[in-house]
């Protein structure tokens, strides 16, 4: 094969191969599972403030997994994993906690950290820490490492010991524990949050299964 023909084949190989890869890349990026975004609702009463309402459930029958609870109906879940809030804003978070609980494996997380005032309101009462033997989940948010403001928010969500029955979606629960707290966002970017009270798979580090899967006990907070 002469030089120009060889060059042609070389070019074709790169273009065809590169094209195939690019196509595969697009397919991969689009196929990556994505829950619908939960946008923080701008507050009517205060400037630069918005409200975010979440829930934590003992299974996946409520929330975004659809009627049958998706792939893992028995996994504990947050109602939404794809949170979107504006930059430089005070975010008021309300979490309805429907799940039972137990003793924290790492008592570090019984403290409320990183919120405005360092406190959270639980069923109307303002506290800065909870009983570590009676925790359901936590909401722990961490910032983009090494970029802009370090953001670290961690709020323990006490276990639900109410008895009054409540139905949401296909799930039957009891009246939730309501946890409210606020924090300020800074720079734009995608932050990661998850529950720090492990209860999924494995024996020792129980951070497998629901704990490490988006849509259950892990999610993102996009600040834009």
């Amino acid at each position, binding site marked *: 094969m002469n030089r120009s023909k060889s060059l042609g084949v070389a070019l074709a190989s790169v273009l065809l191969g590169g094209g195939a890869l690019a196509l595969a890349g697009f397919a991969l990026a689009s196929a990556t599972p994505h829950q619908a975004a939960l946008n923080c609702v701008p507050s009517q009463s205060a400037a630069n403030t918005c409200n975010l309402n979440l829930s934590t459930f003992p299974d996946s029958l409520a929330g975004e997994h659809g009627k049958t609870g998706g792939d893992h109906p028995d996994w504990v879940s947050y109602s939404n994993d794809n949170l979107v809030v504006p930059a430089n804003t005070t975010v008021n978070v309300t979490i309805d906690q429907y799940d039972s609980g137990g003793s924290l494996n790492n*008592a*570090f997380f019984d*403290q409320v950290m990183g919120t405005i005032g360092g406190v959270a309101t639980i069923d109307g009462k303002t506290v800065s820490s909870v009983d570590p033997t009676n925790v359901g989940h936590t909401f722990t948010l961490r910032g983009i*490492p090494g970029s802009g403001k370090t953001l670290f928010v961690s709020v323990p969500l006490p276990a639900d010991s109410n008895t009054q029955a409540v139905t949401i979606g296909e799930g039957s629960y009891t009246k939730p524990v309501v946890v409210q707290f606020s924090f300020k966002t800074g720079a734009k970017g995608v932050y990661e949050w998850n529950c720090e009270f492990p209860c999924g798979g*494995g024996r020792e580090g129980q951070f497998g299964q629901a704990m490490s899967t988006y849509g259950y006990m892990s999610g993102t907070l996009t600040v834009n």
Partner: protein
Amino acid sequence: MFWTWAVITVAGVLVGIYAPSRLMPRSMSDNMHLTILTMIVFTVAAAPVAAGVYAAALHALRHWTHKGDEVPAAGPAVRENATVVTTWLLVSTLLTVFLLIWGLGALAVDNGSTGKNPLVIDVTGQQWVWSFSYPGTHVQSDQLYLPVNREVEFRVTSEDVTHGFWIANMGVQVDANVGTITTIHTTPDKLGTFDIRCTQFCGLNHAFMVTEGHVLTSSQFTSWLASQPQRA
């Protein structure tokens, strides 16, 4: 060939002397100063060796390649050269021994605790958060605070899987393992802020298992400790 070797060696030596401190994070501890010095020494020592290989290869490409289309004639049928092999073995052994002695020396300095009542800090890694606690006080924090010029002993453990506790500015790294405590010492000697990153792939948010550390003056550190909420 000699000049090619010389030029590459000089370039390598210059890179060795000037690059490490500029390419690596700002040194904030005694360990880190020694680590950077070791990088310099190793690079300077490696420069003539690498230069030798490159000079020989370049010389071969320039002077010993066959020109023309026909099959090349045979080269000199040299199978052995006792002098060359012996010299090579000797030089490479000496170089290795030198690097070894330097390394073992640096290791001894690194590992030696000064014994001077270090500040003990318990470091706990959990997927995917670092937490620090100061024994003797009831203070726990998600960021690390250290007083300058005081030796600190980190006692590191994990709640779930193996994490890597790493302070890049101080040249300290040790794994956080479940069910056991690993220890590492350093003495911070510069004020400022630094990052602590996890270096052992630990699941979903491994890349986000980062937190900040701060080296404060003695009095600032004491004030900080006093201002922290007391935990049970």
